């Protein structure tokens, strides 16, 4: 597959598929792998798993990244037609109840996050995973500041609340690993090849 792609290298291959990244032309031509279609069950399993990770008793460790937000951004960027704002909103409500936060606080943050990710998804996919995480950090920060604004409006500031913004930075640092992990099922070859591990 890869050699075929390189042979076609110079030509602009027009395709309608959403998951097929546009071929890079110019100075650095990165060979891109054509991904397999994603299974909806996998999307749901990862979203649910990330939500469960958030439910773990992290205590007052507010620097722990929001795993669900990160996974949500991932699927919004890679499968914007399958994972949208409705899912973000519903999971946000669940998160609110778990954290004893105001009803709708996380829902608002996740909706904004989802919108940002969906509207930027074509641009983000042009970059390698390392650079993508800068975009992701921006998105996470915007979502976090939105929910912080709600809290400041309702209850006033707590000292050191901004320490929570660390979780966005940590989340962005996790992005390349998350990308590698969540894309791995789609990177499998079509036919099972015994000489390759995956």
């Amino acid at each position, binding site marked *: 597959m890869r050699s075929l792609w390189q042979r076609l290298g110079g030509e602009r291959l027009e395709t309608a598929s959403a998951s097929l990244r546009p071929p890079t032309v110019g100075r650095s031509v990165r060979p891109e792998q054509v991904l397999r279609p994603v299974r909806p069950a996998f999307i749901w399993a990862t979203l649910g798993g990330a939500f469960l990770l958030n439910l773990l*008793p992290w205590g007052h460790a*507010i620097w722990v990244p929001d795993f669900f937000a990160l996974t949500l951004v991932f699927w919004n960027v890679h499968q914007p037609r399958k994972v949208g704002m409705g899912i973000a909103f519903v999971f946000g409500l*669940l998160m609110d109840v778990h954290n*004893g936060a*105001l009803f*709708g606080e996380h829902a608002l943050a996740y909706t904004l996050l989802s919108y940002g990710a969906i509207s930027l998804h074509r641009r983000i996919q042009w970059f390698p995973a390392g650079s993508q995480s800068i975009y992701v950090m921006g998105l996470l920060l915007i979502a976090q500041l939105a929910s912080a604004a709600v809290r400041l409006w309702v209850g006033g500031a707590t000292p050191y609340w901004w320490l929570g913004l660390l979780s966005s930075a940590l989340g962005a640092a996790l992005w390349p690993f998350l990308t590698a992990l969540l894309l791995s099922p789609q990177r499998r070859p079509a036919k099972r090849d015994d000489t390759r591990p995956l």
Partner: protein
Amino acid sequence: MEYGPPPLFNQGVSARARLAFFSLVAAALIIVDAQVNALDAIRNGVEILLFPVQRVLLWPRDLALDVGDYLSTLGSLNEENARLRLLAVEQAKLAQQAAQLQLENDQLRKLAGVRDRVNVPAQMVVALYESRDAFSRKIVIDRGRNDGMRAGFPVIDEAGVVGQVTRVFPLTSEVTLLTDKEQSLPVQIARNGLRAVAFGGQEPMTLELRFLPANADIENGDSVVTSGLDGIYPAGMPVATVLHVDRDVKDQFARVVLKPVAGMSRSRLLLVLLADPPPLVPAAEGARGGASGNVRGDRAAAKAVRR
């Protein structure tokens, strides 16, 4: 499906319209939840759905703690045993004295014609987890409305006051810790009976006394106990010790920082005192008067009255 063409014309509702819709719904929910308690039914429903999942997710941590306990060394166990034995002897002495003092006190109270102190029943609870929120200090306990919990009950641990039940679900409850900046309780200095109100402090894990004159008689190390004026917390329960006192000449009030004596986020076994809060006076004067023990701003006071 994945390699099919994207729908060219039927794109559904645009992303911006969706954003507007969901944000408006979320904003409406936030406003309604901040102002009135109308959403508690939905919240309860969601909590019941989440409850089994939350409990299952606590297993790994509890298992780790149990294994840690099991593997604790003989030395530490011996040490703890010796300490506890010493404590038991000390407390036996106190308990004997207490029985005698209780008798004496009852007689004296009868002589003085003072109303008897009510003995509040209590319920042992386990702290499940601390909510992950940069803006508040809350823990969730494993008893809810079905076990007789109600908002307003005081929560203590073996050392002193921990906080107050502030929201009740059918199976769990939320306890707001004293260190939460929205929490407050009437206290007095044990040494001289000086009354004050303790609020959640500026620094994490501290309380502070507000509205005390700069020349108030307070020293570092003074112990602070509940004054019982709110009718919620029984009088005389340890709350905190004075960490330091700032007497700024420019300022009219002294800044007193306290360190709570209760384990706050560390202890897992807690005691909820099933003491009904006194009936609340209607919003107009009741909220400001601090009848509920939550002397706060206007909005928060209105909230306290609803509870």
